[in-house]
Structure formats: C-alpha cells, structure tokens
C-alpha cells in the first residue's frame, strides 16, 4: 500500500559517456507501494538510470537513495530486496524452468521455499520441466519475473518487460504486475508502450534528454483535457461558444473546448438555441500528454 514514503530518491544525477550527456542533473522519486511507469523516448536515460541505481554505472555526480540507503555504499545491504529484469534476463537456456529458479535462488542466497509458489504465480507450473530454450518469449519473461521475485523483494525494477510479448503474453504479464503492486510492492516499469503504462501505472516519471520532464500520479497527468462537445450544427455551436469567450479546436470528433466548466458551456449553447448531443470531459491520453511533454513529433 502507498504510505507516502519513497522507495527511490534520485537527485542531481549526471552521467556523461564521452561527448554524450546521458543524464543531465536528473531528479526523480519513486513512491513506495505503487506501480510507477518510467517513461522516456529512446536515449532519454532510462536504462542508464536503472544501471546507476543498481550500482553498475558510476554517475559523475548526484545522489541515489534506495529503500533508505545511499547508493553505492549501502547497495550490498539492499540488493537482495530488489528484484530486477533489466536488459537480458540471464536465464540459462539449457536448464528447465525449475532448475533456472533453483540456480537463481542458490546464487542470490535465497531459499527454495518460494519456487513452487512463484512458478504458480507466473503460470509456469505445468512447463517447469521444459528447457528455457523451448520457452516462448513470453514464458521466458515470466520465468525472469519469477526469478526476480524469489527473494520476496520490496522493490521491483523492470526495464521494458513487455517488449516482444504477444498480446496474450502482455495481458498475462500486466495482470501479474498489477497483482504485485496491489500486494504492496513497489514496482517500477519502463516501457515504450504508453498504453501499457496508462493501463497499469499509479504514478509516472517522464524523462527526456537525461532530465526530468514531469512526475506525479497518473490521474493528475491525464486530467485537464478540456470538454468535448458534439452537436448537429457545429458551425452554430462554434459561433455561440466564440461569442461566450471560450477557446476551442474543431476536429473530426466535434469541438474540444479549453475549459472543464461543462455547466457554462451547456448554458452558452442553450442560450443560443443549440442542444448538443454530447458535453463531456475529455480525458487526455498518456500518448498525447507524453508527446506534448517530450516535444516529439509523430509525423
């Protein structure tokens, strides 16, 4: 459950590779007990951030705190409380699913008592005897998730976990991520698929060019999309709204008014003798918000 505490606090993170500034004073916080979508276009600094958090990349400047410990000094104390799928999942293809988890448990210093439970959680109990090499991409990702959960971690960091999965695989994986967040774990997911994040996340961090663009609850990010009006005579409706001082755009869906005051909009139209078929709040899509914030051009 979200309790207001922060699982990850990053401040002033700087990292340069040669002439490339991968991170330029990045600040963000990941709240505990929620599912956070970590978004950014290619090259925004997402993977570099994850690698810095896991102590595999040495930032040039900045501070990182994970579960109350300063990184990298405190990393040995918390690394077992972090489950990770970043880049390659590290499965051994010649071993079956169960043996992969046994090896992971032994290597990472966990007991074997959660292996059956995790196989069942990710839906691989029936396939546990098969070699990982025979698994589909989705099954390998689920096995990687099971391995990441062996230590019952407080924090899960998943970099593009849905990449390459078919729709059924994505659906199954999303359901499991949501279950984990609902159980009180902190889950951080980066994804290119904004639809996934929109469906999953409680909180969003958006980065671009190595800097924070915005962060906050997803609901806050998506509100303020204006009001949608549909009417039989859009010309008359446009004139009435313009006369009333509203700003709006006309598109294929009708009129999009730059105001959430549905009552005033309805009154203005009614006073002009126009009875719209629809006056409703227009919710932004995460895609529109993301493109607007990052300045990307979809054309």
């Amino acid at each position: 459950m979200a309790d207001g505490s922060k699982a990850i606090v990053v401040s002033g993170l700087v990292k340069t590779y040669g002439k490339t500034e991968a991170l330029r004073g990045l600040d963000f916080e990941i709240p505990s007990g929620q599912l956070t979508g970590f978004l950014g276009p290619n090259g925004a600094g997402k993977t570099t951030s994850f690698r810095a958090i896991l102590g595999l990349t040495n930032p040039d400047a900045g501070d990182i705190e994970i579960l109350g410990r300063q990184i990298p000094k405190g990393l040995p104390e918390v690394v077992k409380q972090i489950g990770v799928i970043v880049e390659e999942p590290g499965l051994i293809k010649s071993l079956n699913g169960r043996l992969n988890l046994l090896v992971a448990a032994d290597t990472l210093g966990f007991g074997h008592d959660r292996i059956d439970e995790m196989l069942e959680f990710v839906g691989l109990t029936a396939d546990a005897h098969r070699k990982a090499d025979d698994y589909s991409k989705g099954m390998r990702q689920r096995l990687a998730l099971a391995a990441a959960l062996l230590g019952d971690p407080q924090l899960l960091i998943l970099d593009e976990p849905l990449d390459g999965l078919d729709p059924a695989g994505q659906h199954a994986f999303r359901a499991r991520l949501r279950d984990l967040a609902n159980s009180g774990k902190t889950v951080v997911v980066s994804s290119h698929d904004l639809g996934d994040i929109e469906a999953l996340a409680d909180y969003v961090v958006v980065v671009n060019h190595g800097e924070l663009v915005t962060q906050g609850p997803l609901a806050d990010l998506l509100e303020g999309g204006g009001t949608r009006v549909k009417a039989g005579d859009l010309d008359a409706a446009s004139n009435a709204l313009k006369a009333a001082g509203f700003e709006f755009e006309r598109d294929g869906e009708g009129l999009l008014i730059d105001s959430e005051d549905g009552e005033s909009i309805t009154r203005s139209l009614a006073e002009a003798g126009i009875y719209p078929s629809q006056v409703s709040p227009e919710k932004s899509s995460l895609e529109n918000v993301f493109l607007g914030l990052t300045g990307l051009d979809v054309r």
Partner: protein
Amino acid sequence: MSLLRAEYRKISRRKVFPVMTLVLITFVGLAAFFLFIFGEIAPEIADELPVLEKPEVYTVGAQQAVTQTWFPLILATVLLGGELSTTVWASALTRDSRRIRQLLVRFFTYSLATTIAFLFAFFLWVGLAYFFAPGEGFMETSEFLSIFWKAGLVAIAWSSIGTGAVAMLRSVGPAIGVGLAIYFAEQFLALWDVWENISLTAATTALFFVDIGGGFGGFIPGGDLPLWHQLAIIFGWTLVGLGFTWWGLQRRDA
C-alpha cells in the same frame, strides 16, 4: 554450499564444458597418435619422431594434457563473461554482500572443471601409451599422484588469466582474443632465457618436464627451473590474474 550447488548445475548442464573437453581430448589423442602410433603406419617418418618409451611417456602425456592451457583460459572467460553480460548476475557478482564468495566459488568451479578435463585427457594418453608405446613400467606412485595437484595448480593459474581478461574487458570475444594472445605470446617468449624465469608457460611445462632429447625436447621451456621457482611463477601469475579479476569486477561503467 548453495553457491557451489548453483555453479555445479550451471556447468554440468551446459554444452560448453563437455564440448571443450572433447576438443581437448581430441588434441591430446592426436598428439599421442602421431607420437607413438603413426610411426607404425608410416615408418618412413618414424626416424623423425622422438622415441617415447615407458615410463617417461606417461609424464610426457601429463605434460601434453596439462599444457593445453587455452582450455582453462577460454572456459573461464566464457563462463564468467556470460554472467557479466546480464545485469542481474553482474549485480550479484559485483554488488552483493557475498561478492567475494561469489567470485571464489566460480573460480574454484572453473579450476576444478579444468582439472577434471586435464585428467580425462591424461588418462586417454595413459591408455594409448599402455597399449602402443614401447618399453615397460609405469610412473612412480608419488609422481602419478603429483599430477593431480599440479594439474589443479595450472588450472587455477590459467583460469585466473581468463577471468582477469573478461572482468577487465567485460566482453567475451575480446577477452578470448586477449587471452589467446597471451597464450601464444607466452609460447614464444618462454623460449627466451630472460622471460623463462617468469614465464607461466615455462613453469607449467616444467612441472612435467622429462628430457626426451632430440629436436623436440629442445623446444620444451622451463627444464632448468627448480620446483620452488615453478611454483612461485604459477602463484605469482595467479595473483596477477585474480587481481585483475577483482579490479575488473569492482569497476563500474564497464
């Protein structure tokens, strides 16, 4: 124990170890074939081959098997390098509170696996020599038993070169390249009197030195090195290899 169990499962179920062992055995078997069987098939070249008789032929066999030091070098590079290329294992190797144990257990596993492979090759040679080499007799018991610990020492030293290369370079291909460059360069440098005093190849070969004379014997380095000197060289190179391994693993941004 759990770490050992994990490493055993990893190495025993993957193709790299049995395939490399097969290659090693083939090399040593071919050497045995040419040295004391081929002369029977092609007598015209028999005069040009050194005469290997029992019991010296068994020591030569140990030398032939254990000086295939590309084996521990490549095995360690491939196994450790494969893990360093994945974030979750790299994190365990480099940031876990048990990282020293993580490294030592892997190193022990690679060295033990190499020793076993060396011994497989040696026993193949012993079998072929028993049936095809001229002469009578077998090695002294103490000498026979010494092969086990000497093979282990060589495995440890050359494994450390492999782990050092891949820990520094963080990429299997280039690390194998560097390791093989060291391996081949050492083969030649060991023939130089000055380098011979610190040469790992010379020390490795000298552990199983037997003077079989002729042109063949003249190209075996390290024959004059006393045992303490051989062991010091091997120990020194092991420290260097392990030092680079530890340093490489503690580096970030690799």
